[in-house]
């Protein structure tokens, strides 16, 4: 029977080679960030990575916690593609910021809607698309410009990855995923855009125990699943959230 469940985070990331491109679900705060996979990748030690994520880690909007900033601290990253790469506080620059400014790490900054659509396009087999966002700004540099309905638009290319680290709520053994609240963010689209997608979940259930109508990420997009066994200790109310009962 199809079983994509891995016993450990270390086993799930063991084959990631140097130079891999990795998408990591991430937004403001720890919800939706697969940080056990990130920690395993740090232990595994692959280098010269290209990271695709909303931030470059450690932006400290609310909680201070270890996200993919630890990959920068461990000098595993050579390039980051992000929309919100810098700390909002000048006095608390992130490790990524220091490495970007010193030239150790290359930054490709992308408007958030363009970043998400490039990932979606990558997963959907669309090589490129036009968007009005960024026309007439520095985003235009090096890009093809074309007018549609009187509006200048820029040609943006799809993004794909070797691996995607996604955070979800529940998985079945076939890899179908459901999410919880704003945990969803980039995770479902990143799951579609990588050769190997690894999901970090709160709970794994037997195949058939998720409502097919409620599945957000169909299992064909997910290759490996690892269940969290150690409560990371962030504030959540799994027992009484009305939206958590939907599946």
């Amino acid at each position: 029977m199809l079983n994509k469940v891995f016993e450990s985070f270390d086993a799930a990331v063991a084959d990631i080679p140097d130079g891999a491109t990795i998408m990591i679900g991430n937004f403001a705060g720890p919800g939706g960030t697969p940080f056990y996979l990130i920690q395993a990748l740090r232990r595994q030690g692959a280098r010269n990575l290209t990271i695709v994520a909303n931030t470059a880690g450690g932006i400290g909007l609310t909680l201070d916690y270890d996200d993919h900033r630890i990959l920068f601290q461990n000098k595993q990253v050579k390039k980051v593609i992000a929309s919100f790469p810098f700390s909002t506080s000048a006095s608390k620059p992130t490790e990524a910021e220091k490495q970007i400014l010193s030239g150790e790490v290359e930054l490709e900054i992308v408007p958030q809607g363009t970043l998400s659509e490039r990932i979606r396009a990558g997963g959907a087999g669309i090589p490129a698309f036009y968007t009005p966002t960024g026309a007439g700004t520095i985003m235009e540099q090096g890009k093809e410009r074309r007018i549609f309905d009187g509006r200048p638009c820029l040609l943006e290319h799809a993004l794909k990855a070797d691996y995607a680290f996604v955070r979800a709520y529940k998985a079945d053994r076939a890899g179908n995923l459901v999410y919880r609240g704003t945990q969803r963010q980039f995770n479902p689209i990143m799951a579609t855009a990588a050769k190997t997608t690894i999901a970090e979940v709160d709970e794994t259930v037997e195949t058939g125990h998720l409502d097919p109508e409620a599945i957000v990420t169909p299992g064909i997009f997910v290759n490996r699943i690892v269940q969290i066994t150690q409560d990371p200790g962030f504030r959540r109310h799994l027992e009484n959230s009305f939206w958590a009962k939907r599946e």
Partner: protein
Amino acid sequence: MKERLSREAIAMRIAKELFDGAVVNLGIGIPTMVSSFVPEGMTIIYHSENGMLGFGSVLSADEVEEKADIDLVNAGGQYVRPKPGMSFFHHADSFAMVRGGHLDVAVLGAIEVTDCGDLANWMFPGRGVGNIGGGMDLAFNTKKVIVAMEHTTKDGRPKIVKKCCVPLTAERCVDLIVTDIAVIDVTYQGLVLKEYAPGWTVDDIQALTEPELKAAPDLKEIELL
């Protein structure tokens, strides 16, 4: 005596621009405060970049202990309340809403704005770096863009300028500017001063504004309620 509006008062004034049923995205800073001043009984559908629509208000500090949930946060990472009718979706759908023109109002902060409505708000002044985030998509594609900001920089220089010195977020996108001393419409004929803070004259405000201001025929003092 010239008074400057507090950040909360700027947010209060902007709340008056919203309407029942409006789909609204609030940026970080003063814009976030706007939700606190929406009149009772008016339904605003808030959009958050991270894939949430129709959520409730931000939790107060003393509610966090009991109610906060890391899977229920707005784009600024603040804990919010769930609300009947809310929905969750992924980031590409979230920006399909933005790019597709489905949002009525975006309230954004600004570093500089021009009389053409050009907006610069993503590069941190003096740091040489910046976060674009969702601001560019919002500025380009929302039906009405309202800027919330102080009228001048900390050292007193105008933030409403003829040409932006820092990298643009979007050209010709701003519809209304609400500052601590004025409410200004951005029109095809240039900037129209609609309202002034208590004690300020048109000349006072013009002295702190680089491009020319035209006084609206119905120019009046800012009313917050």
